[in-house]
């Protein structure tokens, strides 16, 4: 793992930085690349959903299914862009856009009643009946 930063040239790092709108420093991008390589076991250039599920901390997260939908088949640039919403340098608008995307499960640009219901179902699991959720 110690040699991977040599596979990432300065041009690559700057390109990725530009793609995520400067949300990460160059050092952070190098570390993220090491993590990406660690997760991408088969060196196919993207991380399959299975790999994310094998991280126990991620798999027990209630929102893992919705996030997996957004995380499928991401190459490294898209991976960094995905995580850029969590950087302190990301704008508030960017963060809100991200949360909106998590809610908008059918990707139609609108958060409908069903979207909200689905998110609520993910979050509360078996502890609330459907009727209670709809009432809320």
């Amino acid at each position, binding site marked *: 793992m110690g040699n991977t930063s040599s596979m990432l040239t300065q041009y690559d790092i700057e390109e990725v930085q530009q793609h995520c709108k400067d949300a990460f420093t160059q*050092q952070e991008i190098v*570390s993220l690349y090491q993590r990406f390589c660690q997760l991408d076991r088969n060196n196919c250039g993207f991380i399959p959903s299975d790999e994310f*599920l094998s991280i126990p901390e*991620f798999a027990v997260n209630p929102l893992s299914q919705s996030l997996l939908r957004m995380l499928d088949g991401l190459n490294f640039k898209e991976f960094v862009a995905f995580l850029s919403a969590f950087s302190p340098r990301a704008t508030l608008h960017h963060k809100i856009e991200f*949360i909106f995307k998590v809610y908008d499960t059918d990707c139609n640009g609108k958060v409908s009643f069903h979207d909200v219901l689905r998110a609520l179902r993910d*979050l509360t699991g078996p502890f609330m009946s459907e009727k209670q959720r709809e009432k809320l």
Partner: protein
Amino acid sequence: MNNIGTLKSSSSELDLDRPNIEDYLPSGSTIQQEPHGKLLLHDLLNISPTLSEAAGAIVDDSFTRCFKSNPPEPWNWNVYLFPLWCFGVVIRYLILFPIRILGLTLGWIIFLSSFIPVHFLLKGHDKLRRSMERSLVEMMCSFFVASWTGVVKYHGPRPSRRPKQVFVANHTSMIDFIILEQMTAFAVILQKHPGWVGLLQSTILEGLGCIWFNRTEAKDREIVAKKLRDHVQGADNNPLLIFPEGTCVNNHYTVMFKKGAFELGCTVCPVAIKYNKIFVDAFWNSRKQSFTMHLLQLMTSWAVVYDVWYLEPQNLKPGETPIEFAERVRDIISLRAGLKKVPWNGYLKYSRPSPKHRERNTLDLIAVHQFLGGTCQLCSLILLSNKTLPSQCCGDWRKNDVYLCVYLS
């Protein structure tokens, strides 16, 4: 939230130049809500803490870190270090390695030529045969340890042979068993392996009273539990050695202990093993190497340096559950060997957490929002829907590690 806290403390292990993204994650909704009598939609739908946790897990998680082996660091090769390193390689591979192989073969010959006669000729005199077999196995293990130049320091009183006691140790590699066996002949409980190791297991180690299990068989658990109980009762049997982690961990962390060893109703004697990685990393990454390759790697390095501490025997305290007992012993071992604790079940290396675990975590999420001053405002809601909750909810969940109830149930 306490799980972000655990992530932060374990990430101090990372290299200094590796940034910790958990530090940068937004800490939940910035609008502080006054406690209301009812569960508000707004609070439930505030998913940013959950999202932050998920992103934190993607970037770095404590479970993968347990099984990371150190990459071999190349020296800074310049004019004088490179020849020195080459010289070292030559000595290790061409001089030390053949000597060690010879020594090991000699040891095997002596062992087998004594063991087989003893085993068959002394069939009638069980006690004498078993004590001789024990000494022979101890001798063989010493040969093994010498074959990779084990430099060991034992601390604490030597284990005594008494009934109703089990030994537990942290697990880094299959050689843990050999280095402990060298001092005292234990009866160990191991996963059945294929190949020549399995052959050894079923022939020689059988005589010591060792027990096998198969991780993949579900019903196996009860059978093995019964065998364990029977073994501990017998006064003549070798003391039982159990590795409650269930899998090899990289000697910087300990994963959760299985409670099987702690509900046998006997004294538990903890043993802590810590390897010094100065010459070689003794962690056996079973996904990356076979055991033979691992042994060869050990035999072609300078030495294996480690410490073994035999710690004070522990008993189940009145009012303590086996799980709490296991955690207490794990604390003792981790403290002694300088290992960090992670709240994960080692078997997750082989399987995924089931969706049931995800559901348990939703409770955590809701409780985070509603835990205010000692009353869980969620519970009134739950009572309405007639669902029974584990008693860990309602104010107690913060005391218990939430992952603890997820994986040990």
